[in-house]
């Protein structure tokens, strides 16, 4: 009676060991990328960038960072102003209308800046990867805008 139980335990142990070893090995790369604060590793792998291309994109990203922070600030301020006016208004006022226009303008400016940066980044990619990259960004910042079937990574 003891021997078959030992064999059964060995079967369970082998299955468990195979599962964990395979899972660990198969997810190693993505886990490493997730643990790395620098997202360039993912971009390099996903869009098959060379070292030179990745370096040029990293520089573009570093230059864009202050502009992105500035836009975040603008969004926060316009949102705050709009929220405050919405709370105290009981009718549509010119002030509220102006605040809404400003919020919409801020959103349009942010989308334009994001797309401009995405276009700039895509110039450092191979043509077919650039198309995929631009589609991925457009789909994420303006979902549903691209109706045609592109092989984008979601």
């Amino acid at each position: 009676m003891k021997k078959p139980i030992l064999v059964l335990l060995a079967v369970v142990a082998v299955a468990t060991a195979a599962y964990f070893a395979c899972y660990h090995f198969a997810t190693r790369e993505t886990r490493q990328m997730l643990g790395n604060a620098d997202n360039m590793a993912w971009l390099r792998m996903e869009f098959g960038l060379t070292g030179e291309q990745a370096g040029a994109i990293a520089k573009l990203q570093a230059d864009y960072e202050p502009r992105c922070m500035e836009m975040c600030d603008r969004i926060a301020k316009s949102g705050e102003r709009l929220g405050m006016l919405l709370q105290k208004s009981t009718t549509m006022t010119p002030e509220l209308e102006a605040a809404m226009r400003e919020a919409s303008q801020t959103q349009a400016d942010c989308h334009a800046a994001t797309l401009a940066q995405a276009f700039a980044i895509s110039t450092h990619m191979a043509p077919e990867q650039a198309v995929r990259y631009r589609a991925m960004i457009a789909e994420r910042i303006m979902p549903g805008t691209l109706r045609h079937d592109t092989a984008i990574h979601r």
Partner: protein
Amino acid sequence: MNDDPQLRELLKESLSDVQVPLRFGADVWQRIQARSEAPAKHGWARLFEPLFALLMRPAFAAVALLLAAGGGVAVASMRATDANEQARTALAERHVATLDPYARLMAMR
């Protein structure tokens, strides 16, 4: 359980050339009696008996181990594919947050 004269005769005939120990017959009956008085096996033990019998054969045990390894690898591959897909989506979102201020503010919340 009583000694069976017919069985004793049969044993004597079939083992005519073999030198059996003096208390052979008594020992055999004792073991039969002990087995018949042993508590009945649990339901689960009876259920797994055929499986245990198979596992006692080295060829089947080896096949079971191979199947276990293959099963483990197959399940891990499926789960790893899902995990990698989720991780790639998260990484794409993270990249978008470096470009899009709205995505960044959402990520910071």
